[in-house]
């Protein structure tokens, strides 16, 4: 009988059941005459079996809620659509996002709520709606950038009918946050709430939340989280949110 050449790779493929039948028989013959290799092969097979007995029970565990049912995943999928055509798909996205906005409130959902609360607190103010008025925009931007610890930009929404009223600094459970206020010719006010996002690699799609009469579109873009609030219909709010997003991501 000619001497069989069996490589180390053959032995592993034998262990993993990856050899064709004919080659498999040859390796068996080889192992019969090489007890040291046969011992190794037996040990490796035992390792495979032990790994399965250790970790296969994970397959039967209930998948934790945070993995199984996170609204963000539906939203991320829609982000894909959004990349394809922000404007054309805008209305559809707005409609879908509400459908996905179910389940356990995520951290962004909590600060969207804080944004809505800040909106209803300050938007009705007649005499003191903002701390720093739009006339001092440079000062406003420098001040808020300094307090948030990251450069912030003020979107200009004049082309879609909203002028900047000004901005203010607010406390939150995650540190200082900023609020910019806008209003249209009829005095209808929108507020844009900005907070720093600790994990600066994340991005999310637009998500929509409703707090009583206040609609909020919110999203995370790198190191900042944004929430646009207003007592306007959802299409209008989405139109403004889209403009804000595009100005911040030219």
């Amino acid at each position: 009988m000619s001497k069989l050449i069996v490589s180390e790779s053959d032995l592993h493929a034998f262990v993993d059941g990856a050899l064709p039948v004919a080659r498999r028989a040859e390796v068996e013959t080889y192992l019969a005459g090489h007890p040291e290799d046969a011992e190794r092969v037996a040990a490796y097979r035992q390792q495979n079996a032990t790994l399965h007995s250790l970790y296969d029970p994970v397959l039967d565990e209930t998948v934790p809620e945070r993995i199984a049912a996170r609204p963000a995943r539906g939203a991320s999928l829609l982000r894909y659509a959004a990349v394809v055509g922000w404007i054309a798909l805008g209305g559809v996205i707005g409609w879908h996002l509400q459908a996905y906005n179910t389940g356990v409130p995520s951290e962004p959902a909590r600060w969207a709520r804080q944004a809505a609360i800040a909106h209803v607190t300050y938007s009705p103010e007649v005499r003191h709606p903002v701390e720093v008025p739009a006339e001092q925009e440079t000062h406003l931007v420098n001040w808020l950038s300094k307090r948030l610890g990251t450069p912030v930009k003020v979107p200009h929404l004049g082309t879609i009918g909203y002028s900047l009223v000004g901005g203010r600094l607010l406390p939150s459970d995650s540190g200082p946050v900023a609020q910019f206020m806008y209003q249209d010719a009829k005095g209808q006010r929108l507020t844009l709430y900005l907070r720093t996002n600790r994990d600066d690699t994340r991005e999310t799609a637009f998500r929509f939340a409703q707090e009583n009469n206040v609609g909020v579109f919110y999203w995370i873009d790198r190191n900042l989280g944004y929430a646009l609030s207003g007592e306007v219909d959802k299409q209008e709010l989405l139109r403004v949110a889209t403009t804000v997003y595009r100005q911040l991501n030219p």
Partner: protein
Amino acid sequence: MSDYEPRIEQHIPRLRRYARALTGERAAADDLVQDTLERAWTKLRLWRPGSDLRAWLFTVMHNVYVNQVRARASQPPRAHDDEALNIPDRARQTDMLEVRDLDIVLSALPEEQREVLLLVALEQLTYEETARALGIPIGTVMSRLSRARERLRRLMVGMPEAAGLRVIK
């Protein structure tokens, strides 16, 4: 697009199994799965329809894991050097102990060997799929697999590590 969702969902239990074995901890494993799914949803357009979604998800998880390991680089590393692998000799005990011990010695393997071993032995990816998932040549898969298995075997029976590693043909 909507039919992608159930397809990704159905791989979650196996992603969790792999992550558990890779990290050795439940919470860390689920963090890894969560980050992987998040990344997968945003990168879904990079997945080629018709190719193996599960293998692609392992690629995504590998990339997330490597980033996490890098981020932890300032912390004390998991045992990487041979010095740290000197687990005391012991007599062979019961099967139950052996199962638990494999768990421990597994965590003593270098990350790159553990990934290869688990994808092949636990997740039963082919060598080609493993090479693609990790972005390494198939020869590297074979040499890492060989080192991982031999290292585990020697640690399990309390043998010293082999001085030289066998040449892979």
